[in-house]
């Protein structure tokens, strides 16, 4: 059980990076600009190096993950607060592993893309990059935790670096946005804390734990709770996750936060942090409270469909690029939640894959929008026009990421979106049909934005806009390559996700709906498949 502590080390690498960055001595105020620049570059290179080490380390770890092995692998467990049965327990299944993978891929990309974002802030460059690395540790921790209390600690702690990243280094009404973000999250977190404690108390009354309270996920899944208790505890967790995810009507903090955050911070928020919400819905809401999960399914599906359509419609009406992308995420999170609550293999696998794909696609388009905004100094779509003529690389990559947002087949997002829709349709036809309208709205918000910003005659204010630089290309091109590769050949990732989904499904005694008129395998296979 306690072999090599892979996950602890994976989380510790960025933390060590943060320390290393902070230990770089600051120069006195009156130093020569050249020295200051060299020093800040050292800080950035250090941060980038540690994020890359974490990436390589996690890749090595992933290759050692066995898709036929036990559900949770790389497990570690140490008693932390024995009085309350709190453990430092880590472990990942396929779902958590791919989310950690996404986190460590996005981090060097974001660091590279944010190279100059903190240069003009009043706070120090060191702090900004240290905060990012601390955030990475927290995010690895939150996905890897298999003790509910530990999860809660990471869940709350990751707010702190993000609060400072928005509040101190953001733009526009950043403090307003940061405080709003914090208050929403904290209130959700408080509800969850109540539920976490209650879970401990109920676990202590259960024979499954030998009447010892515990927070260990592996034990809690065996605790049977009365339906009423399940419903209350479910709500405690669910509202926290729905705020994080964000699900309509808990979404209003998101546009402000994505507007005020620097592009890099916004990518970490939309791409990774918010996934903790949907991840939590699978891991905790579903696995710990399956009866309540089913009870609330009609309601949640309704909210998910509203999110999909409402987020897309409001996105169409935005005049700011950043807000527009923020609202598209409301729509996309609706798809993820839809897939989770459809409770089919396709929906669950699709939703998990969606979390990863959304991270890359939204990451790419947000960073590209950020590069564009940094050149022109405005985030209003109307201030652009004809960018394709002056900066074809920027526009071309922006288009590919935009096509990923609208889930074009051949790009990764299509795979996950179609799995979610098909998985939902097989059980909830009406919900899936409404959700399908979202693909039309997605075409409108992406292509209309593209037309206004990139097409048409070259507007005077962008006529001198330089195209992407090597650093910016190095940040975005890997994401685009992943988007295409995972669209054409998603099997390697699905192979990691599928066993975890099957295990979850059997854990909660759910089976896929049987086709009304199943075609015997031999016929369906004859047109194509091989053994």
């Amino acid at each position: 059980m306690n072999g090599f502590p892979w996950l602890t080390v994976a989380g510790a690498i960025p933390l060590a990076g943060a320390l290393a960055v902070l230990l770089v001595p600051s120069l006195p105020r009156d130093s020569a600009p050249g020295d200051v620049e060299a020093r800040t570059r050292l800080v950035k290179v250090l941060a980038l190096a540690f994020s890359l080490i974490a990436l390589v380390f996690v890749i090595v770890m992933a290759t050692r993950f066995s898709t036929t092995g036990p559900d949770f692998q790389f497990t570690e467990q140490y008693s932390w607060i024995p009085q309350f049965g709190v453990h430092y327990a880590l472990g990942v299944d396929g779902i958590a592993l791919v989310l950690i993978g996404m986190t460590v891929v996005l981090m060097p990309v974001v660091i590279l893309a944010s190279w100059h974002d903190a240069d003009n802030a009043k706070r120090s460059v060191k702090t900004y990059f240290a905060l990012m690395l601390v955030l990475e540790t927290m995010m690895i921790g939150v996905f890897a935790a298999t003790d509910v209390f530990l999860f809660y600690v990471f869940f709350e702690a990751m707010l702190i670096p993000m609060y400072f990243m928005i509040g101190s280094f953001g733009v526009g009404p950043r403090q307003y946005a940061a405080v709003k973000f914090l208050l929403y999250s904290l209130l959700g977190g408080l509800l969850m804390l109540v539920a976490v404690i209650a879970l401990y108390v109920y676990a202590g009354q259960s024979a499954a734990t030998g009447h010892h309270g515990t927070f260990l996920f592996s034990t809690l899944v065996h605790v049977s709770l009365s339906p009423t208790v399940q419903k209350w505890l479910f709500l405690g967790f669910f509202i926290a996750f729905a705020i994080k995810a964000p699900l309509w009507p808990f979404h209003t903090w998101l546009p402000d936060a994505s507007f005020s955050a620097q592009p890099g911070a916004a990518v970490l928020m939309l791409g990774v942090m918010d996934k903790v919400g949907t991840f939590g819905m699978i891991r905790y809401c579903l696995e710990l409270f399956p009866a309540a999960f089913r009870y609330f399914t009609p309601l949640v599906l309704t909210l998910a469909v509203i999110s999909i359509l409402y987020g897309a419609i409001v996105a169409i009406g935005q005049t700011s690029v950043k807000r527009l992308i923020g609202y598209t995420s409301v729509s996309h999170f609706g798809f993820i939640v839809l897939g989770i609550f459809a409770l089919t293999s396709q929906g669950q696998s699709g939703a998990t894959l969606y979390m990863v794909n959304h991270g890359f696609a939204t990451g790419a388009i947000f960073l590209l929008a950020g590069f564009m905004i940094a050149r022109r100094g405005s985030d209003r779509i109307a201030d652009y026009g004809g960018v394709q003529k002056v900066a074809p690389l920027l526009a071309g990559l922006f288009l590919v990421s935009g096509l990923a947002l609208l889930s074009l087949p051949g790009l990764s997002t299509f795979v996950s979106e179609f799995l979610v829709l098909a998985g939902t349709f097989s059980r909830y036809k009406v919900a899936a049909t409404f959700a399908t309208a979202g693909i039309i709205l997605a075409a409108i918000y992406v292509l209309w934005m593209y037309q206004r910003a990139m097409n048409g005659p070259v507007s005077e204010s962008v006529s001198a806009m330089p195209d992407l630089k090597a650093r910016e290309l190095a940040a975005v091109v890997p994401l685009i390559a992943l988007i295409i590769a995972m669209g054409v050949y998603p099997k390697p990732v699905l192979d990691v996700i599928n066993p975890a989904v099957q295990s979850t499904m059997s854990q909660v005694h759910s089976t896929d709906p049987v086709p009304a008129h199943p075609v015997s395998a031999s016929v369906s296979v004859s047109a194509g498949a091989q053994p």
Partner: protein
Amino acid sequence: MTTLAATGVLRVSWLLLAFPVFGAAVLLLGGRRTNRWGHLLGVAMPLAAFVYGVIAYFTLLGHSGNREIDLHMYSWIPVAGFQANIGLLIDPLSVCFVLLITGVGSLIIIYSVGYMAHDIDRRRFFGYMNLFVAAMLLLVLADNYLALYAGWEGVGLASYLLIGFWQFKPSAAVAAKKAFIANRVGDAGLSLAVMLMFAEYGTFTFSGVDAGVKHSGSGVALALGLLLLLGACGKSAQVPLQSWLLDAMEGPTPVSALIHAATMVTAGVYLMVRSNPILAYSADARIAVAIVGAVTLLFGGIIACAKDDIKKSLAGSTMSQIGYMMLGAGLGPAGYAFAIGQLLAHGFFKAGLFLGAGSVMHGMNDEVNMRRYGALGRIMPITSVTFGLAYLAIIGIPPFSGFFTKDPIIDAAWGSGGTQGWLLGGAAIIGAGITAFYMTRMMLMTWFGAKRWDEHAHPHESPGVMTWPMVVLAVGSVGAGAFLIIDDRLVDFLAPVVGSPPVSHGLFTWPGGIALILVVLAAAGAWAIYGRVPVPATAPRGSFVTNAARKDLYGDALNESALMRPGQWLTRLSVYFDSRGVDGLVNTLAATVGGSSGRLRRIQSGFVRSYALSMLIGAVLLVAGLLVVRL
């Protein structure tokens, strides 16, 4: 009928996709370095695919018995219960399309070398064209509906990129976006159809659906048929999703020829014919397909009569001709093979007409207004003769292509019996007359009469790289119909896939005869208006009908009032509700009440209340949900 695994030379049929994919990748990723030779690669790859296509065709002919060959490529989306593969189905139907796409496609791409010679972005153009060929081949070769859907959206992307190729023109950018969005409406229908197949049969391979639809009843078949028809309407510009095609003429003319005439827009017909096992179980779905076709063939023809822009008139004609194909597909086994025959013949003559129009534009400073043409026949002899042959083909004069391919559709529509036969057959006959009218009008306005050019225009014949493809297409316009229809060549070739027509049609049928008389009368009528008297250089005011047709029979006006305006209001309302209703209102209220406090405090009190309101709404919904769930 079971499919065979690919053997021999067909085991490498993935080359069909690999050639154009490689071309597109090199040209789009290679950047300026490939500028000098890019167009050569852009021509070579589709040509290589054509050569392989010919080999595959003859290999298939060599299989005397079973001609459905499947090549499994790889497992695309494997999830428990959901197996999506990328696999190719080489059968008579798909091979017809492969030859059309790569053959006519190569000709048009060769022509583009001349047509786009002076465009600084020529390399990118050839990259997009290769992307299109790859996606279109995936569409027709896929052995399951999801892979077909990938090609389906892929051609939509290529179409978007190519309509908007001159994206610095706002009209082109808007037209490209409009085409994609209108197509997406159809695509939503197609993707729902795939979901329904999955829910009903647990599979969406062609053979699986074929097997499943036998047991699932006519209700499911009707639903599938209508959803697929919605997809087909979007892609093939059929009423009610037709309006994008006329605007799509903003793209370079070779694009109009290849994508918006010869191949992509016919994908809807392919989809309906490929789905013949589904249509077989729902007469209502077949009727719906036939009605859409009949309505569109009149609708497009009327629009084509009123347009002075040569490309838009041809676009209206394309809608109309595809209407014939849809009508044929809606008639079941009586019409499938003839729909495909019309589609293949149309690929030749309509591509020829568009390339001819492009040749005229090339010599006339991109002038598209036919009222500014006239007397070009002698100046552009090759263009005018090839155009003229395609003209004879499209209006269906024997022994040119259109006569052979259109008559069986007219006859079969008439033969469907009763009121239905009267209506569908009548529409097809009247449509033939309308076709003759607008095409004769186009001929007369372009090639004959007095010259009405701009003084800056110096019309001249196009270079050989452009005229030779037109010559080859003209040969097809003359001979393709006879080759396909005489001796039931195409009918017998396609029979394993779509079944045989219940009755065989003679070469001369009496509904076809009536149509032919109408064609002659309509051509004479057109001559009376546009040939006997000089054509005014500015359009006359015109009747109510003419004006309606000039405005695309109010297709855009309808979209605008029924969809766009309400959509805009909904968007504005939602944005307002989101920023003011949920959030801002409470913030503002808090700010006003606490006016004397510090800024941060104001904001903070704002949040808590706004939060509270959000939560309140959420709580109300939760309670409402609980009540609903209880019931």
